[in-house]
Structures are given as structure tokens and as C-alpha cells.
């Protein structure tokens, strides 16, 4: 066989076999990967709005999604907001839950971050950071308490704690939450947060 023909044949064959194998692998795993992704979001919603039995996507734009969370009887428990923003090093993706009136925050969870290990990465830490967010009054923008305090009781109603040595990361998370809250109120006012069972305001 002519050399150049042989080269083409061999490369094509290798490519075809590889492609065939990969499509099989994709068939086998795609569903599970998608499930993993959905489960992560569902878990996060249940975490930020305790008691959630079902959730429903109400509104979606780039990097900003609002879910309504409901208990077993279909009663609305509040909103879970999926948002992201720039951190100290890379994008921070987080989710937080509010009551239906958007007056208090239930809790906050960090889904993705690449902050400095041991410092900014403490934003994922319950003990060091996240527990200070439970039940905050969000009718006013949240503010940062610096220097940090040792227990949630010492904070004001709209204050969240700083991580010692990672002021910037703490501040960025607070910034994302404050901005998202503003946006949430705005789209609620515009009537875009209609519950999905037929009622459109």
C-alpha cells in the first residue's frame, strides 16, 4: 500500500475506533453526570431552605437562578438563590435561602470556590464562617464585622462575621449575597417570580 494512503487509513481507523468507544462511554455516563449535577443543586436547596420537599426553578439568567422551595403540602417555604461572583482568586459559586418575604436569610452554602487553602477557603467552613449567616436580617444590606467575633450572638442583626486573615474572601461572599438580594427583589417586583402552577401575575 502506498505510504500516504496507509497513513490516512491508519489515522482514520484510529480516530473512528476512538470516537466509537467514546460515544459508548458517553452513553453510559452522561445520564449519571447530569444526575450528579442536579442532585448537587437539590442538596444545596434542601440545605439552604430546611424542610424543602420539592423545588421548582422560577427564574434563570446567566449565573443567577432562583428556585422556589416547597414543603410536602405545597406551601412555599422560600427562595433558594444560586449566584456567583468573583472571589479573591477565582469565581465563587454559592447558594442561599430566604423566607418568602425576603426578610431573613435561612442559610448559605458555597458550591464552588478556589480561594487560598487554609485562609479564604474557610468560606466553606460551617464553624468558621457559614454558621454566622443563619437568620440574618436582610431588609438592609449586610455588613461585615471586623475584627471577627467568636460567636453568632455577638453580631448585629445585619452583620456577618469576617474570617480572620481572609477579609477579602469574606467581603466578596457578602458582596455576591447583597447583589443577589437586590436582584431578587427587583425581579420579584417585576413579577417574574410567579409560581409555576398556572398563575401568572
Amino acid at each position, binding site marked *: 500500500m502506498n505510504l500516504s494512503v496507509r497513513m490516512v487509513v491508519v489515522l482514520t481507523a484510529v480516530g473512528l475506533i476512538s470516537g466509537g468507544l467514546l460515544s459508548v*462511554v458517553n452513553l453510559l455516563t452522561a445520564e449519571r453526570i447530569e444526575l450528579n449535577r442536579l442532585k448537587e443543586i437539590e442538596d444545596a436547596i434542601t440545605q439552604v431552605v430546611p424542610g424543602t420537599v420539592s423545588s421548582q426553578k422560577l427564574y434563570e439568567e446567566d449565573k443567577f437562578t432562583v428556585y422556589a422551595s416547597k414543603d410536602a403540602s405545597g406551601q412555599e417555604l422560600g427562595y433558594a438563590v444560586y449566584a456567583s461572583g468573583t472571589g479573591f482568586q477565582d469565581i465563587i459559586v454559592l447558594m442561599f435561602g430566604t423566607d418568602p418575604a425576603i426578610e431573613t436569610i435561612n442559610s448559605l452554602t458555597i458550591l464552588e470556590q478556589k480561594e487560598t*487553602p487554609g485562609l479564604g477557603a474557610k468560606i466553606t467552613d460551617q464553624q468558621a464562617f457559614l454558621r454566622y449567616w443563619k437568620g440574618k436580617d436582610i431588609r438592609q444590606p449586610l455588613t461585615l464585622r471586623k475584627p471577627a467575633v467568636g460567636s453568632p450572638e455577638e453580631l448585629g442583626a445585619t452583620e456577618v462575621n469576617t474570617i480572620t486573615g481572609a477579609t477579602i474572601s469574606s467581603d466578596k461572599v457578602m458582596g455576591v449575597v447583597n447583589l443577589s438580594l437586590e436582584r431578587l427583589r427587583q425581579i420579584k417586583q417585576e413579577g417574574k417570580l410567579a409560581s409555576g402552577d398556572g398563575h401568572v401575575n
Partner: protein
Amino acid sequence: MSTKSLSAEYLKGLWDENPVFRQLLGMCPVLAVTNAVINGIAMGLAASFVLILSSVVVASIKKLIPTQVRIASYIVVIATFVTVADRFMAAYFPPISKALGPYIPLIVVNCIILGRQEAFSSRNSVGRSFIDALGMSTGFVLALLVLSSIREILGAGTFLGMQVMGSWFKPWIIMILPAGAFITLGILLGIALLVEQKTRERRAS
């Protein structure tokens, strides 16, 4: 063509030709993902999977491949297995897949793997290539294990996530940052060279 005994073929990967400490190959994952033992092991196993299967495949089809397109063919073979590993981890071990991020797809360009195809599998039998790949993989996993153990214990005070240092211990955060990877690797390479030098002196005398 290698004429070593099969056991020597395996053992050379552990020390004499250890891909990390002796050949200094595959430094990117070695430095990047060894901040925790679990990541080190996962990376080691994923790279081993790719290396072993690629070596076997390349050794079995080596006669069919014209030399001019061999590198392209090897890369397609390697990339196929890397994608398999990547999808598999994303489906069954999502947290690890997330922690390793882009470094799993980057196994494609890991020099250990392409290096073994070019240097060994393309001119040795399937069985021998398998043994060679197995040895190199073991050496790679061991190196990652050593490096990630040192970094996780000093940098976080934990081993595989379990607290091993007492409460008196203050974690050296630098060790789980990139700088710690370079410092640890540098010291380990120095020690490896020293050991090598001493054994050579002993053999000579």
C-alpha cells in the same frame, strides 16, 4: 528491544527509572494535585489507568502504524483513555473529579505516558509493555503518595482527611499552596540524588 528479566522490567519503574524522582517527567500533576492524599491517589490511579491501557494498545498496534503518524496515533489513543477516565470519575466520584478539575483532561499531555509509548511500547512486546507500564504507574503513584502525604500532613495536619497531628500543631498553610509543592519536590529530589550517589559509591567500592 529490552532484554531485562520481567521482574527487573517492573522494578525499574519504582526507583532506577522512577518517572518523578529519576526522570522528572509529569511534573504538572505532581506539583498541582498533591495538596491532599486523596487527590494524589486519584490522579495516580487515573494516570496509571491511561498509561497501562495505552501501552498495551500501542504495543499491539505498533506494526500497523507508519512511523510518520505514530505520535498522532499515540495521542489519539491516550486521549481516548483519558476521556474515558474523566467521564468515569465525573459520573462515579463527582467530588474527586471536581477537586482535580482540569488536571484529569491534562493527563493527555503528561510526558510520562507519551514518553513510555515512544521509548518502550512502540518497540517491545505487549506483555513487556504491560509490565513496564505497571512498574512506571506504581512508581508514579508512590511518588504522588509520598509528596501528597508530606504536604497534607504538614499543610493541614491530616492524612486522608483524618486528623493525625495533635491540637498543638499549627498547619503550615504554605505546604498546600503551590510554593509548598515546589519546596517539597525540591527537597525530595535532593534526597533521591543523594541516595543514588551513595548507592553508586557503594557499588563502585
